[in-house]
């Protein structure tokens, strides 16, 4: 029953999932090639020296260390990767709201399908996306590293924590999206709310890195707990962040199930 519900969603999303996965694989491979070019060329430091201070602060907020492993790990936090993966997760998370919107939900839930199982299908879609997209990046990383030869490069396994942290972040996005989707009247409204919150928290995170005076706001954004570069370079320093992100995934997910079970549909 759950497989039938999940299968229908995956069938509708298959080309988006395949396209995004392939895109992330190529993106990470390309970033590694660029990182090698910087490593062998005049050096990124010289390029950065030409940037205005404000822009330089923003770049440093995203990439704290200008080394080959840091650049290679940047793919795991590339805005394109984050936006693409989050968009697919939001599509899965708001699918029940969409079915409610269209009226299809009445037909589905008139079968012996519990509301929990119905929402579980969306949750499984989120889990698949949150797992598969970091794996695609990791595969691109492993392939890219196999094609370049840079002194001091790390093995591809060193990027597993970065991929894991990305999976945790996407899970947190998924949990929040599922909660918004389960409480919304309309899918469009839910998606807009989720996008607005993600955008605001991302901007807040970036600003807190640039402006020390905003430091107190850091804890409130999930992106604060997401630093794949540090997770790659500093071994063992990412478990706490992963735990916070997983907590941010589990709590809203549980609330989403509670809400979906009790509300009028």
């Amino acid at each position, binding site marked *: 029953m759950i497989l039938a*519900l999940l299968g229908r969603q995956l069938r509708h999303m298959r080309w988006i999932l395949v396209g995004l996965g392939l895109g992330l694989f190529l993106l990470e491979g390309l970033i590694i090639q660029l990182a090698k070019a910087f490593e062998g060329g005049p050096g990124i430091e010289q390029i950065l020296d030409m940037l205005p201070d404000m822009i330089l602060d923003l770049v440093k907020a995203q990439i704290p260390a200008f080394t080959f492993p840091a650049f290679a790990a940047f793919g795991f936090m590339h805005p394109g990767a984050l936006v693409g993966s989050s968009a697919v997760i939001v599509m899965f998370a708001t699918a029940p709201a969409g079915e409610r919107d269209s009226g299809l939900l009445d037909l589905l839930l008139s079968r012996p399908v519990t509301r929990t199982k119905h929402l579980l299908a969306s949750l499984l879609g989120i889990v698949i996306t949150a797992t598969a997209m970091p794996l695609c990046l990791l595969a691109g990383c492993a392939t890219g590293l196999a094609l370049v030869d840079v002194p001091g490069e790390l093995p591809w396994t060193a990027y597993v924590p970065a991929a894991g942290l990305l999976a945790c972040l996407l899970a947190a996005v998924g949990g929040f999206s599922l909660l918004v989707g389960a409480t919304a009247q309309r899918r469009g409204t839910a998606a807009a709310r989720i996008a607005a919150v993600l955008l605001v928290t991302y901007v807040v995170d970036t600003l807190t890195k640039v402006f020390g005076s905003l430091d107190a706001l850091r804890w409130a954004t999930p992106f604060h707990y997401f630093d794949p570069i540090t997770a790659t370079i500093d071994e063992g320093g990412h478990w706490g962040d992963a735990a916070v992100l997983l907590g941010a995934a589990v709590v809203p997910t549980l609330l989403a199930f509670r809400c979906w079970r009790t509300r009028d549909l």
Partner: protein
Amino acid sequence: MTAPVVETRDLSKHYGPTVGLDGLELVVERGEVLGFLGPNGAGKTTTIRLLLDLIRPTRGEARLFGRAARDPDVRRSVGYLPGELALDGRLTARKMLAFLDRLRDPRDPPADPRRRDALCERLRLSDADLDRVLRDDSRGTKQKVGLVAAFQRDPELLVLDEPTEGLDPLVREAVLELMREAGAAGRTVFHSSHVISEVDRTATRVAIVRAGRLVAVEEIDALRRSLTRRMTVRFAGDRAPVAELDVPGTRLLEQSGPSVVLAVTGDLDPLLAVLARHAVAHLAFPEPVLDDAFLQHYADAQRAGADPS
């Protein structure tokens, strides 16, 4: 003794200050075809959505097969056609039907493909219709797919909300026939409609709702018998024997020479005895239809609602 197929006790649903349904007490036994009548907004769809646990009651409870409507197991034996049918437009009709069938309980066997094919044939769903994506289908074709989905598992209880909406007359006939057959085969049909003539042809009993309240529940025949009917009589002579027509259950509405129009309620014998004593040139006494009952009950309920006592 087996539990009723549908049973509601004080079932109520309020949306803030708006009353969707108020204190519905209804029992539908196995094998019944119940016509659930009322105009738009009367509470028909709210009742159905409460029965299927899509919305939760403000007060009271709904039970199917003797179990709480919240129990998903009860829906193993339910076939449902929503009033505002929505299907996945990206699937073909064939895939949609297969998908809906896969949402059965793992303990239940899949729908019989021969039954599905027979239903498609009776509802005039061609292979071309079945293999076209649903977003390209007409309203009528989608309705037929919804009907096949509801009937394909031969469920114990069919909940059909405006089942003939958007169908051509031939297919409409086929749907009414399917409902009658289901009732004859011991299935229970909950037929919600505002098309009274259709309910008249399928139901064994009708429930009439108005403004969220149950106005009447009666056997169709009893309902017909209780109706005030109009009889037009033209006597053979110059004048009608008006004085003799003052018998129990009969009221004179109009008179013009030898012709009279009478309102007749209940037992016809006293009136027929009078008519038998006179030469009658013409008599018209049309069969009562449910529309009359509906309008009569509705008018009564409206008067009662307007009366502050």
